């Protein structure tokens, strides 16, 4: 990949500016002219979609904070005030609430795309780890945000999750009381969660910049997993990928808009329209859908400490994934066995999500345990062993070759169809 700048200042002013602050040069080299593999498919457009989601959440969040009141006695009413009295308040709140779900939907597609095409492998380990950090920050931010409307699910979700810290030996209770600022989730807890919920998106933004920086050092992975070798393997990011990302984003926005305007509450929980009552727990406490798999893992383990540790391990294991997969081949396209285990893993994660929404009893509990075990087996046994025993399919010499081959096959098919 060529690292030489292709930026040519056009006017006297831009030359003058470039010598003092080469910001336009940086933007040109990293956006307009950035050499991107020519074979990226639509699964690769989710990075752009995620950036859009983050900005949307920050903008709508700042707006909501102008009207929201972080006080246990007033929070619920202030959310209703936003919904009823603030100009377009209902729209902005629904964008923010649905936006959280859309953000996670996109991040899951992004993560599973990375898993399929081996985007975590050398030289992209740091890129992957930064991604996991972003995901972790997203989870914490989303959890704190869910507490803010101060409904029943907010309150009891906060109670259950903060109580997880009480498993820490000796200092557990001290730590939970420190987190709460009291002896239960209360006004002090709500205020600090609001403050942190406002702070963390900017931390995410910072890590996203590192994530993109790292991406632009190693360059994109691509569906065939072969590294870029020559100039014709790539196209400039603009206009090829700006237009493709934009098209994909608008398609995503259609789904987004569907939920905002026609189904805004279905992704949330009805109990959160009941104001928090510290004396009554709702019949079913479930987190938002995007955290259900972890909730299933938490409850699959019979010991409290064990559950917390295993749930933590379920995310922590993603950090060391680049070293668990022993295969040198990146893309699942050329790994016949991995491809099958990949799909089993996907179904297993969806199953965990479903089990997270059910009461942990009887068959559900048994199933949660099997699925939890399989989650770890996939990373700790399947991935290391597959790399050693699997015989990969022949790998194309270059991206360009792969593209041309695909075109030829398509043309031949078209011809035979015509005949």
């Amino acid at each position, binding site marked *: 990949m060529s690292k030489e700048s292709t930026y040519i200042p056009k006017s006297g002013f831009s030359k003058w500016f470039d010598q003092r602050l080469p910001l336009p040069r940086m933007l040109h080299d990293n956006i307009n002219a950035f050499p991107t593999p020519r074979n990226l498919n639509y699964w690769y457009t989710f990075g752009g979609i995620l950036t859009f989601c983050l900005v949307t959440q920050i*903008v709508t969040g700042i*707006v909501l904070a*102008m*009207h929201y009141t972080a006080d246990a006695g007033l929070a619920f009413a202030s959310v209703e*005030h936003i919904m*009823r*009295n*603030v*100009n*377009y*308040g209902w*729209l*902005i709140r629904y964008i923010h609430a649905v936006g959280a779900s859309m953000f996670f939907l996109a991040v899951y597609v992004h993560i599973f795309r990375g898993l399929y095409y081996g985007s975590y492998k050398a030289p992209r380990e740091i890129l992957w780890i930064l991604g996991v950090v972003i995901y972790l920050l997203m989870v914490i931010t989303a959890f704190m945000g869910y507490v803010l409307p101060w409904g029943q699910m907010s309150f009891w979700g906060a109670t259950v999750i903060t109580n997880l810290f009480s498993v820490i030996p000796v200092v557990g209770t001290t730590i939970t009381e420190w987190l709460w600022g009291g002896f239960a989730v209360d006004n002090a807890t709500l205020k600090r969660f609001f403050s942190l919920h406002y702070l963390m998106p900017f931390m995410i933004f910072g890590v996203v910049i590192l994530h993109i920086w790292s991406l632009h050092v190693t360059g994109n992975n691509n569906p065939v997993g072969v590294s870029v070798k020559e100039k014709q393997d790539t196209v400039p990011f603009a206009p090829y990928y700006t237009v493709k990302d*934009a098209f994909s984003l608008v398609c995503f926005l259609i789904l987004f808009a569907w939920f905002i305007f026609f189904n805004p509450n279905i992704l949330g929980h009805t109990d959160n329209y009941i104001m928090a009552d510290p004396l009554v727990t709702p019949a079913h406490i479930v987190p938002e859908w995007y955290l259900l798999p972890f909730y299933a893992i938490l409850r699959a383990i019979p010991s409290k400490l064990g559950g917390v540790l295993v749930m933590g391990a379920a995310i922590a294991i993603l950090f060391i994934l680049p070293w668990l997969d022993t295969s040198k081949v990146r893309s699942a396209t050329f790994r016949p066995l991995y491809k099958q285990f990949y799909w089993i893993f996907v179904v297993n994660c969806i199953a965990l999500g479903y089990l997270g929404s059910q009461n942990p009893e009887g068959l559900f509990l048994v199933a949660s345990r099997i699925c939890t075990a399989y989650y770890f087996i996939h990373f700790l046994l399947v991935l290391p062993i597959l790399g050693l025993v699997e015989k990969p399919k022949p790998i194309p010499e270059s991206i360009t070759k792969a593209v041309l081959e695909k075109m030829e096959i398509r043309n031949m098919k078209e011809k035979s169809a015509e005949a």
Partner: protein
Amino acid sequence: MSDKDPKQPSRRDFIFLATGAFAAVGAASIAWPIVDQMNPDATALALSKIEVDISQLERGQAITVKWRGKPVFIRRRTEEEIQMASRVDIDSLPDNNARNYNLSPDSAASDENRSLDENGEWLVMVGVCTHLGCVPKGQSLGDSKGDFGGWYCPCHGSHYDTAGRIRKGPAAKNLDIPAAEFINQNVIRIG
């Protein structure tokens, strides 16, 4: 490829232009809710009228009420104060506009145009200095009323007379008179 044909570049450009323009319209319409949400909300607009019971007010007394988050001065003036205000030559005033919402915008700043009733007994004004928004002194008995016996703004020394007109100091305009009317003998509606 049609777009490589030099005869037909306009069609391709048109598509790009149309797409760009369409996206720009979308972005602009998203901006509006984000701007509009900062405008006064439905609760603020609904409370924009208040009714004040003034039956307890003696001549020479004043009360301050809150309207749209701002103080409104209601003063039942003495004969002396009315005399003081009506003697003034309007042309010599720094601001000779009545600043009265209930009258046409070019009304002169005569005392009749400033007071609410025909006798000139009642004066209703927004108690916000027209210089930089402080609340002038003069409502309470012990307050400094300035050189003209009306109100005095402590922030930058603006003096208002007994009709709330600016006489001296940095403020350029008379105190605003809001929409107000008697709905009966005892109640004034503001807003």
